[in-house]
């Protein structure tokens, strides 16, 4: 009887043009928290999809508890005791908590009994949850509880967690970790996927590091520094963005008591948002996803109109102006969703460059497009921001996430904005590209622009912003200088732990 629960040997999966996993081997022991580390595109997701039966490996084998394990579907995986919490929630917004849980179980009990079980388990683990509520009304942290409880009800032997903390406040992360440690103590193995290194150092017993589909290292995360882990993950030395301290200038972007209803039924309305951003300054706006970030960006970019005097750019009232008029005045924005919002997926990079650059780069001539100038603008973005693409005539969709993000951000920066608003500038972008984007934003501020960075990555905000404010249920806290903030204070600004009960976990 060995203490290995799941053993993976030589697992290989190829997609057309990409070797997603190349002979990956590692073991997960009983009751351990095992980290799977790697950049975006390192093959972590493909690997866990194979363990969960969503993807079939081309070669290699797995053994679970000494027996061969080759799940053909998630149903078989669940029957074998493997459960998974997804990175992008696999929840149904219009259904209730109990219905969502039932959908993730093989043989759910009748609804009433299930609701009772949900209450019981959720209280045992300090994750209170009302089974009758509709998921669309829950916060991100609560939604994750639904996913976790769905897994726990099946009493899994192996729990896979795919980047579970990306949407949680620091306090919520602490409670999640306490739950996971308790589960591990009870003998459940946990495969924990993340690229947040401090978390892995705090939580995990062992780590397997993937790069470009291969295992490039195994480590004891508690014995290494975050930087050493990061360099194993990236395979090169990392540069830290920096900028010279610049004097704070005049107020450029002035938002006063901005209240706006969200156009989406599950959205968050903005409630009396007030902020002033100065020239040469980066204001970081943190907060858990779904607390009004998208609405704030839409209100600032001009997609949603506001009362005229609620938003001023250098003293001019712009609240009632649309995006093009605001661009003309120098207020630019780059939204979170790259494909479909910031860029049109099936149009070429030249066309995408034209779409936001038309006014400020003078790419139009009496209503006709100056294609030569547009192409030249696209080439400038590609060159300046090191966008890896064969040329500007390629479709936006063909670029990897990080490259398209560099293009989208670069497109706005090259237009020399007076004020730039970006939402999640490095979401789903690999470490090297993320560092380049952060550096570009800092350079822009150093040149005298006012920059607003909305992000859920606290480390990023701490690194680049001068002042920090948090969005919580559509309200913006008063901005405070980043240098004097602690992680606990930031967590409280973000709304604390959303009524999670720490006491139960400790007990």
């Amino acid at each position: 009887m060995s203490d290995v629960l799941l053993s993976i040997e030589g697992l290989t999966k190829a997609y057309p043009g990409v070797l997603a996993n190349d002979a990956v081997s590692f073991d997960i022991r009983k009751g351990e928290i095992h980290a799977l580390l790697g950049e975006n595109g390192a093959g972590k997701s493909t690997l866990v999809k194979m363990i969960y039966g969503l993807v079939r490996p081309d070669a290699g084998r797995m053994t679970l508890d000494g027996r061969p394990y080759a799940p053909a579907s998630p149903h078989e995986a669940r029957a074998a005791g493997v459960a998974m919490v997804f990175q992008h929630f696999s929840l149904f917004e219009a259904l209730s908590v109990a219905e969502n849980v039932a959908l993730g179980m093989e043989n759910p009990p009748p609804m009433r009994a299930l609701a009772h079980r949900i209450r019981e388990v959720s209280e045992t683990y300090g994750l209170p949850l009302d089974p009758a509520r509709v998921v669309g009304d829950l916060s991100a942290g609560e939604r994750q509880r639904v996913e976790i409880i769905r897994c726990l009800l099946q009493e899994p032997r192996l729990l896979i967690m795919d980047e579970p903390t990306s949407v949680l406040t620091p306090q919520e992360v602490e409670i999640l970790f306490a739950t996971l440690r308790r589960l591990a103590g009870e003998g459940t193995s946990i495969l924990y996927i993340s690229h947040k290194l401090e978390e892995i150092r705090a939580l995990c017993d062992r780590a397997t590091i993937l790069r470009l589909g291969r295992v490039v290292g195994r480590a004891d995360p508690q014995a290494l520094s975050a930087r050493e882990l990061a360099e194993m993950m990236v395979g090169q030395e990392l540069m830290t963005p920096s900028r010279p301290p610049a004097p704070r200038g005049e107020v450029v972007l002035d938002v006063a008591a901005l209240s706006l209803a969200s156009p989406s039924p599950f959205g968050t309305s903005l409630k009396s948002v007030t902020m002033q951003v100065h020239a040469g300054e980066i204001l970081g706006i943190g907060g858990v996803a779904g607390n009004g970030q998208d609405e704030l960006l839409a209100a600032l970019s001009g997609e949603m109109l506001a009362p005229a005097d609620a938003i001023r750019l250098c003293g001019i009232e712009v609240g009632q102006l649309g995006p093009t008029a605001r661009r003309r005045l120098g207020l630019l924005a780059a939204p979170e969703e790259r494909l479909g919002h910031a860029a049109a997926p099936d149009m070429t990079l030249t066309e995408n460059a034209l779409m936001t650059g038309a006014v400020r780069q003078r790419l139009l001539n009496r209503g006709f497009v100056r294609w030569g100038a547009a192409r030249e603008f696209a080439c400038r973005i590609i060159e300046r921001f090191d966008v890896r693409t064969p040329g500007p005539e390629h479709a936006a969709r063909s670029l990897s996430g990080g490259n398209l993000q560099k293009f989208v951000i670069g497109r706005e920066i090259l237009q020399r904005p007076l004020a730039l608003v970006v939402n999640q500038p490095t979401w789903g972008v690999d470490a090297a590209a993320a560092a380049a984007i952060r550096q570009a934003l800092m350079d822009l501020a150093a040149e005298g622009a006012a920059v607003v960075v909305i992000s859920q990555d606290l480390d990023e905000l701490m690194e680049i912003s001068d002042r920090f404010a948090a969005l919580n249920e559509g309200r913006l806290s008063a901005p405070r200088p980043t240098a004097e903030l602690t992680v606990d204070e930031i967590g409280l600004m973000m709304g604390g732990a959303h009524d999670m009960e720490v006491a139960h976990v400790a007990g």
Partner: protein
Amino acid sequence: MNLSGISPEVLIAALMVASTPILLAAIGELVVEKAGVLNLGVEGMMIFGAICGFAVAVETGSPALGFLGAAAGAAALSMLFGVLTQFLLSNQVATGLALTLFGLGLSALVGQGYVGVTPPAMAKLDLGPLGDIPFFGRVLFGHDAMVYLSLALVAAVWMFLNRSRAGLILRAVGESHDAAHALGYRVVAIRLGAIAFGGACAGLGGAYLSLIRVPQWTEGMTAGAGWIALAIVVFASWRPWRVLLGAYLFGGVTVLQLNLQAAGLAVPVEYLSMSPYVVTILVLVVMSSGRGRAALNAPASLGRVFHATT
């Protein structure tokens, strides 16, 4: 004008008959849309069901077999839509419109030999003494089996969607096909099943027109009933009992305007004939004004193409 000729019990009984084709088609489309598929081909499937049912009933002499044939024929036609949209990932709106045009044309072709033929009559259900109760006997117990079947179907669909696990899975697929796929449910298979059910229901609705309501075969005899059924699903905000309400409301206006015409109301006939459609549009406008998607209860994945990426 003489309104005394309009008897409430005849009116209600006629309303139930007039509403049944739309009710059948709408309850089928409701299931399809709950699974996240928008099939605009209801009209085409209805009229194809009408001719299939008519032809089978005439050839075999059995209206019951006719209805079965109608359900099978229209379900087969809906599978054309299913294959195009679920496997070849074609646009659902365009494919649905094409299905309507194709169904209208195909039914005219198949029906060439049946114009002017009288179909075998469907026996009324004899419910014994129940039928002799004054007023209610005529209103509730004087109908053919299909009227009761359509009511039972509404109840069954409600039970299925709200009380059964299979119904929960179907709703989940319509809500977020990506999440359902990630949990291991077979999105395409579930949707094909829903589309076939929707087709069969539309076929039954069409056959009810050609075998009982009219009863005769004429080209284009559904006259927009399929479109009304689609509107009623929206009107009902995807709830089975409200589909019943919507269908009976539409049927009521239809029957009432016929009675008013007969009573010699001093309004041009064209206005009366268009009234059921105008009412449908008005109701849709009122329902849709100033409310978000969730308030309308629409399935979130409705009409979106699903392509499994893994």
